[in-house]
């Protein structure tokens, strides 16, 4: 049998077996779950090389699966993060109900994402896309919080996206006679002008929903924050990247053949920029860590979209690198929130404070990820940010770079809020009992956080697959011109050499840490956070010194005009309006049999009156 079928059968069969295995005991279920994630992943990386392809036929439709270097790059995000999240999930789900359903949908999501990357035809692409949608939907409503609003919103937007895509697919089929992506790309230039515009618009809508681009992003904050955190880490980390994957293909193939592509690029890039800004502003406002990270994800996806939409080699590379980085650090951060929520029972900054000494490893993971998120050197986020700015500057997007810069500077605010809210500040009695999360949760987080460190200095590790993937998309050789193992360059030849910088930073840091420690960190005495200089008085135990309410009030006041209008409200208004309208129109079924009989007669009479225009 073809290995690829084996992989998918293992995924599917494993998912169902894991789902059913609840009665065999939790351990068995956990092992089955991990095996179902790991074994096919192993098979994939050992047996399926890039360039692999297989054609077959279902229901009279030619299908084709295969993988190229670009898909392979994304498979790293999907399977790599998936494996870490799986280990985390095993521990996260301990003692929770509906574990079977969780595992089932987790595996199905991973399978669907791999399937999307493997699909060389639009039908399998769409099938896997939809499997991904509904399996993630079940995860979104999994906790049962506010599902009719958040869940339905997610599904409706997914459906809008998916159906836009489906419309494009059937139009493509009727024009090219085939569902193959190749034939779409090769015959795109021969489409009529209308179709050349319509098809990318529809496809980009479809991908834009998953990539949470404004104005299709309104589902994201609710959905990300409502799913179990173990799942959200791949939801935000890899699932959203599928939208990016699709966008990249649209931009680099179809839209690069027609002059209108420039407009598409501009519009999408600006939408991405606005997504970044407003995502950031709303993230600053949130008091719930999940919501904060959710909005932050939206904002980060905005950067990625800007990168891939601009599409110069450096910008594309920046977008893809940020995509990988975002998968890593946002995956970690959602895990961190999950760990905190598991240990304390809440994820609200206004309730939890001062966990740094209770959950030190979690803090380390959070700190590294946050630094990466903020784009501070020497961690990985900086490399992506740097490439993005440089690419925008060198490709003459001056205003966009300001917008992006504003967004990422403002991102420091919520980064600090996240760290301060959970880990720093007053250590309250209420949380004195909190323990570090189990090892199975901590280890994936710390390893992932370590990856951001590694990639910050040696981005070449991941830039190599990115460059390979970009060559598949028609970009030229970039190694040596735009990047090397530890160097990043812009298109004007300016460079940042990362390795000496890392050594310098570490050297200075260690030097001063030691310097300040001359009389010894050990010699000083740890005092509680209550013991602070408060006009020379030590505050009493019940005095509230926790600063958690109204973080960044002044800033929010300053940007208040920009946040006054919420796009979400407009959608809600439209939805409510439609429901009222439907409530009104359904009154046509009056309940009176006689009325129905009159409808029949009227129907006949109308047909008789207009018979000539109808049947003429």
């Amino acid at each position: 049998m073809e290995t690829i079928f084996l992989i998918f059968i293992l995924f599917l069969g494993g998912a169902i077996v894991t789902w059913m295995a609840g009665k065999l005991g939790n351990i068995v279920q956990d092992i089955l779950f991990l095996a179902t994630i790991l074994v096919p992943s192993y098979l994939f990386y050992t047996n399926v090389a890039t360039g692999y392809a297989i054609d077959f036929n279902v229901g009279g439709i030619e299908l084709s699966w295969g993988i190229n270097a670009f898909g392979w790059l994304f498979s790293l995000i999907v399977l790599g993060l998936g494996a870490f999240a799986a280990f985390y999930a095993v521990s996260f789900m301990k003692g929770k109900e509906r574990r079977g359903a969780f595992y089932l949908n987790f595996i199905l999501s991973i399978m669907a994402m791999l399937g999307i990357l493997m699909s060389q035809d639009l039908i399998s692409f769409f099938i896997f896309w939809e499997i991904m949608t509904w399996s993630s939907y079940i995860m979104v409503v999994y906790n049962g919080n506010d599902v009719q609003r958040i869940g339905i919103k997610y599904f409706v937007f997914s459906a809008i996206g998916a159906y836009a895509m489906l419309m494009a697919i059937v139009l493509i089929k009727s024009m090219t006679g085939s569902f193959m992506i190749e034939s779409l790309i090769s015959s795109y230039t021969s489409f009529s002008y209308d179709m050349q515009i319509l098809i990318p618009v529809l496809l980009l809508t479809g991908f834009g929903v998953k990539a949470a681009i404004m104005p299709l992003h309104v589902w994201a904050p609710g959905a990300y924050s409502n799913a179990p955190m173990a799942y959200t880490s791949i939801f935000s980390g890899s699932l959203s990247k599928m939208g990016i994957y699709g966008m990249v293909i649209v931009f680099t193939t179809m839209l690069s053949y027609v002059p209108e592509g420039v407009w598409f690029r501009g519009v999408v890039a600006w939408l991405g920029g606005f997504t970044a800004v407003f995502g950031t502003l709303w993230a600053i406002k949130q008091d719930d860590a999940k919501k904060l990270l959710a909005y932050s994800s939206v904002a980060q996806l905005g950067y990625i979209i800007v990168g891939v939409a601009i599409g110069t080699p450096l910008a594309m590379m920046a977008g893809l690198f940020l995509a990988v980085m975002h998968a890593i650090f946002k995956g970690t951060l959602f895990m961190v929130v999950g760990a905190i929520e598991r240990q304390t029972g809440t994820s609200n900054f206004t309730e939890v404070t001062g966990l740094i000494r209770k959950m030190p490893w979690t803090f380390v993971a959070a700190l590294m990820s946050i630094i990466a998120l903020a784009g501070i050197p020497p961690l990985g986020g900086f490399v992506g940010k740097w490439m993005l700015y440089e690419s925008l500057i060198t490709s003459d997007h001056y205003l966009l770079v300001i917008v992006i810069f504003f967004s990422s500077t403002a991102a420091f605010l919520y980064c600090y809020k996240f760290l301060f809210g959970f880990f720093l500040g007053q250590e309250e009695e209420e949380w004195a009992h909190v323990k570090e999360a189990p090892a199975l949760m901590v280890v994936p987080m710390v390893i992932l956080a370590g990856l951001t460190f590694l990639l910050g200095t040696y981005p070449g590790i991941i830039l190599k697959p990115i460059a390979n993937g970009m060559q598949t998309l028609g970009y030229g050789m970039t190694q040596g011109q735009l990047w090397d193992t530890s160097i990043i360059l812009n298109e004007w030849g300016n460079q940042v050499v990362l390795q000496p910088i890392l050594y310098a930073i570490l050297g200075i840091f260690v030097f001063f840490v030691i310097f300040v420690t001359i009389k010894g960190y050990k010699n000083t005495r740890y005092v509680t956070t209550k013991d602070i200089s408060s006009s020379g008085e030590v505050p009493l135990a019940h005095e509230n010194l926790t600063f958690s309410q109204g973080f960044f009030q002044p800033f929010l006041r300053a940007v208040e005009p920009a946040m006054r209008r919420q796009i979400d409200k407009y959608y809600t208004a439209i939805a409510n309006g439609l429901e009222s309208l439907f409530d009104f129109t359904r009154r046509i079924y009056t309940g009176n049999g006689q009325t129905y009989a009159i409808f029949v007669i009227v129907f006949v009479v109308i047909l008789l009156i207009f018979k000539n225009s109808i049947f003429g």
Partner: protein
Amino acid sequence: MEDTLFKILDYGVYGTAVLVILIGLYGALVKRSLLKIVIGLSIIDSGINLLLVAIGYLKGGTAPIFSPGYLDNPKIMVDPIPQALVLTAIVIGFGVTAVALALVIRLYRHHGTLHIDEIRNLKW
């Protein structure tokens, strides 16, 4: 003269049938009592049956029976098929009316009224 008379009579038959149908429709659509609606429906049926028989009728024709003397000339027989249809339709109409009346009884027991506007528990 006689032809014209027959023609008028022909149309008269059709017209009468249509009139009966319309009366039935009036009953079914305008009257608010369930019983009257049922009656209206069965009047519609009658009108249609009348119409069916009328189109099968051959002026001066005989019964469609292969009896001695007529065997060689089916042309002058009345078309038998509409009559067969009408027979079937009458039977069916009877069945439907029976079911309808049974339902009316049920409805009256349930709602205590025969006014159709009152019987609107199922709507929208």
